[in-house]
């Protein structure tokens, strides 16, 4: 087997799990993915349909991606069954840097998928982990048991939903802010992934509270290998310099959370 991560491998889906009506997890075996770092992503070829970036939501002998149904490609992916084939290349990107100590993890929606292998690893390192999860409603919650297993007894899981059907009613960034104000915790780092507006808010909070941040961003991707330029935010390529960025880098991204770019590079307000 080649060790060039860019060569596409065709892998068989060994399991497909419905997390909730909008989210499924797809399990497969791939030697290179098994060696990925938390926060890295792969380019998934949904054969005959599209190729899209997806974070690894599990890294192990079996790997997984956890996918929200939001458009053509993800809908096609949701139709796949065990034994169906997908193509994968990667893993790509820098991934999260592990910080030992007291950490916060702020996840919005399917952004949690990206953070799951990180939470697994943080547990192995014996970190104190406080996880803030945001969902639209209780029907959108997924993989909660896994997060709770990882956090207990050295941390806590807090949930926010837009409709208040479970946990705090409101945005997860609001939950996080409330917690910061109330407990004045001194996190060694705040990890976050989710919708850009949420990330922007969490970033602003971290700046205000003088907290280190590692934020995993999204952008439209074609090559995944840092040459096509379609994923640029500020002077950075999300696929190669990211997807995980620190505060000094985020400061050079004035557009963060304001607009993103389409396949043609045209700015789209978010």
């Amino acid at each position: 087997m080649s060790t060039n991560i860019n060569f596409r491998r065709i892998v068989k889906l060994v399991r497909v799990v419905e997390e909730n009506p909008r989210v499924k997890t797809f399990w497969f075996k791939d030697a290179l993915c098994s060696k990925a770092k938390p926060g890295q992503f792969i380019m998934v070829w949904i054969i005959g349909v599209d190729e899209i970036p997806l974070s690894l939501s599990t890294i192990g002998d079996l790997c997984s991606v956890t996918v929200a149904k939001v458009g053509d490609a993800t809908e096609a992916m949701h139709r796949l069954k065990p034994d169906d084939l997908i193509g994968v290349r990667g893993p790509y990107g820098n991934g999260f840097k592990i910080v030992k100590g007291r950490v916060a993890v702020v996840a919005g929606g399917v952004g949690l998928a990206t953070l799951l292998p990180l939470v697994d690893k943080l547990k192995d390192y014996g970190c104190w982990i406080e996880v803030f999860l945001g969902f639209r409603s209780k029907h959108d919650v997924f993989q909660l048991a896994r997060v709770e297993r990882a956090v207990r007894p050295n941390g806590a899981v807090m949930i926010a939903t837009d409709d208040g059907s479970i946990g705090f009613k409101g945005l997860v960034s609001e939950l996080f802010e409330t917690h910061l104000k109330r407990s004045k915790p001194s996190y060694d780092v705040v990890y976050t992934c989710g919708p850009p507006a949420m990330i922007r808010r969490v970033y602003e909070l971290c700046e205000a509270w003088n907290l280190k941040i590692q934020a995993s961003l999204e952008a439209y991707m074609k090559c995944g290998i840092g040459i096509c330029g379609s994923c640029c935010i500020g002077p950075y390529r999300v696929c190669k310099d990211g997807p995980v960025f620190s505060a000094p880098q985020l400061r050079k991204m004035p557009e963060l959370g304001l607009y993103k770019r389409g396949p043609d590079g045209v700015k789209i307000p978010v």
Partner: protein
Amino acid sequence: MTDLASIEPMLKVETLGLRFRNPLILAAGILGLTAPILKRVIESGAGGVVTKSIGLKPRKGHPNPTVVDLGFGLLNSMGLPNPGLEEFMKELETLRGLEAPIILSIYAFSEDELVEIGRIVSDFNVVSAVELNVSCPHVDGISEIAKNPVLVESYVQTLKRHLDKPVIVKLSPNVSDIVRIAEAAVDGGADALTAINTVRAMSIDIEVGRPVLAGIFGGLSGPAIRPIAVRCVYEITESLNVPVFGCGGIETAHDVIEFLMAGATAVQLGSVIARGGLRVFKRILKGLRDFLEERGYSSIDEVRGLAHRR
């Protein structure tokens, strides 16, 4: 080697009335879709940059997969995604006062479009020159132009008539006789040529029995095409007295010297950035300086065209 300034005298290139501090230019379509990344490429050491190829209207390009790594080269069928000229000029506005000329790559599906582009770009002084892409091998309506000398001459003539800037014509290797096309471009008024765009190619995923690219056909770039590109540069400079930007598979200082010896005025770097990152500029510049110093050359002008000696 952080000191780019000290090696400028050995490496600088003056052509088209422009001054490039070194011969390493970012190739069209590589990263050049936004201003901040172009700025970063220049800060990384590039002597000049060519932007993504821009048309009059926004274009999404081909569906994914659009880029595949074959090991000895890349296969891409980007399909000229771009935000359209107006939007892109707003993007470039911020790029003033940089140390490297900015070359705008453009394409057009008709001469009418070229007239309009020429008029719009003439007054846009962020851009020092225009590279006319008639050679993208995977976009219908563009790939055909570079194969037809009559069309090439006419396109270039039209653009020159309406554009008050140097025009570089980017040639395709997918032709029976590249010298004939080069002549047509020069006859039309081209100030310089770039050789080469990608080589039309395809690859099949045998596990699923389908082309690896959604667009079926793509353009091959990277080391695999270097000997083809060197041949094209040599053939053109053997026949014509026109500045040629060499492009195709350059990865090392060694490769740059090869293109210069083949007759290239300067070179463009593309695929190497996938493997080598933006560090490649400084790495190659250092290699060029070492090569020149070790062999006792005082500047790259002394190696240019050397392989044409009899």
